[in-house]
């Protein structure tokens, strides 16, 4: 057990190291933060942003209008995180594309495959590392949201703030896990990125298709939809089945990766 953890940690450490050494990682981070900041500004401060709407709402209430109660802080989180959930679908394939393709191209897979370390440990270490990197992308966004939301009156519950972000992290982890599997299938980074993006489009469409399909098929498909479960978490609907679905996707990705590397070792000529 200790050996296994040490192995996972060794892989994790090496992967993280390479993110810090890679210029493209900084570029991705910069682009993601710029987009995030831009969206947040629009959603919060623009002419029909949350604050403006809140002011109009207050004025109407003061003028004696009978309006349903609206939690604007909650609305802000919901709008921002839903948009982010869409944006990350473009970022995630780029994060996962090199996970195994580089190892295959450089021949370092041969080092890993002949070291006393299991394919599982390698896959788990890699996934943890890339999820960590993804988490560092999200963290600054949480900081400025927290600053803005601290002005909310009445104050928001910490969990209302945390669940959607945990959801974002889980969505990321699930997608990265599948992306990792795809990157284990090819030598080409570009192919891995495009294939992962293609898979995401399918997963995304699944949501729409599920709504139109009748009966069990529709509900079944809806249940598998990552975006649906993400939306639930963003809305604050915390359901163990949602967590299970994310967990299953993550496990599936790791499992398939380990299998594909094992198979690659067998068929390779």
């Amino acid at each position, binding site marked *: 057990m200790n050996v296994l953890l040490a192995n996972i940690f060794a892989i994790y450490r090496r992967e993280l190291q390479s993110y810090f050494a*890679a210029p493209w990682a900084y570029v991705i981070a910069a682009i993601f933060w710029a987009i995030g900041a831009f969206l947040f500004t629009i959603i919060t401060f623009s002419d029909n942003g949350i604050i403006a709407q809140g002011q109009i709402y207050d004025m109407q209430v003061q003028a004696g209008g009978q309006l349903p109660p609206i939690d604007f802080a909650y609305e802000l989180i919901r709008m921002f995180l839903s948009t982010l959930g869409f944006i990350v679908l473009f970022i995630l394939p780029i994060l996962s594309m090199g996970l195994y393709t580089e190892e295959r191209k450089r021949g370092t897979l041969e*080092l890993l495959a*002949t070291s006393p370390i299991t394919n599982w440990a390698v896959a788990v270490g890699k996934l943890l590392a890339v999820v960590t990197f993804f988490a560092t992308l999200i963290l600054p966004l949480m900081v400025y949201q927290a600053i803005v939301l601290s002005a909310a009156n009445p104050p928001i519950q910490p969990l209302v703030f945390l669940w959607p972000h945990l959801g974002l992290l889980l969505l990321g982890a699930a997608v990265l896990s599948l992306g990792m599997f795809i990157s284990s299938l090819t030598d080409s980074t570009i192919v891995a990125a495009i294939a992962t993006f293609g898979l995401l489009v399918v997963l995304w469409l699944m949501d729409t298709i599920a709504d139109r399909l009748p009966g069990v098929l529709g509900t079944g498909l809806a249940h598998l939809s990552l975006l649906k479960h993400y939306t639930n978490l963003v809305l604050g609907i915390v359901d163990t089945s949602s967590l299970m679905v994310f967990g299953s996707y993550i496990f599936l990705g790791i499992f398939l990766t380990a299998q594909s590397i094992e198979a690659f070792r067998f068929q390779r000529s």
Partner: protein
Amino acid sequence: MIEVEHLSKLYGATPAIQDITFSVESGEILGFLGPNGAGKTTTMRILSGYLPASGGTAKIAGFEVHEQSMEVRQRIGYLPENPPLYLDMTIEAFLDFVARIKGVSAGDRANRVNYALEKCNLTERRKTLIRKLSKGFRQRVGIAQAIVHDPPVIILDEPTVGLDPRQIIDVRNLIKGLAGDHTVILSTHILPEVSMTCDRVAIINRGQVVATNRTEELTTQMFAGSAYELELDGEIEQARTVLSQVKGVTDLEQLSSVSHSDGIHSYWRVRSDAPDAGRELTIALVRNGLHLYEMRRVQASLEDVFLQLTTEEKTEIAERIEADSSPESLNSDAVSIEEGMP
């Protein structure tokens, strides 16, 4: 320590290696010698557990390389054909990483990394990014990662490729220094590499082991059918008669002749199977008044050895090894054998 029996590997329908059998004793260095495409890398990959064999068994320290892969992986250091390096790491960080995944304990790690750095002459460059290293340095980092965890068995696939002559000598000495404590198997297509570093040699051609020998025996065998090139002055017909009558001459060929102011110079290639062919030739020439301008031993190349080994009957080879054991051919000339294989 390493036992390979009837090993074979098919890529689709094409056999890469067929029915390979050899063994390496503990503490020994075995050279795996063959031209490119002979199946050396395939064999190395099977031994390391990276590829499964199609048939036969390979055992390292008593463990079957594929069935008990984890046991084997703990006991081997492996340098693949292309050194497996993470370009974005420094040499030191990379070796530390390898030590970690090879299961070196935290307390030993720094020591082992230092040891590997020192052995491979990398200490001064330890903080350099691997991306910035030349081919020769990268190859040395590749060797360092194969020895960093002090494995009992070390598998090196073409360890001196890409090194300059000075580094080649260093690496050969390094490998020689590993013998005793480690069992080493190295593949190469360079003959002198084997004669200088290995205790024993297995020669592989077209996927089959054509001979396994102690290195000295191989060298003897190579010089057994040695050829000389001569430049003579005098009557061509007379020269032909004299040369053809020298004891042990099996083949005589006139290469060319050139007119000089002092007469005609003729060029000859003489093949002899006498152990002291050089002496016999010179004595005969001097006795018959032929002037010798140049005499040169044509060094056997790996190609010749293969040709010899793959065309002749095995019994003949065995006889020849027994018959010829002239000691002078072992030392002085062994170094300068042509590094001839493309």
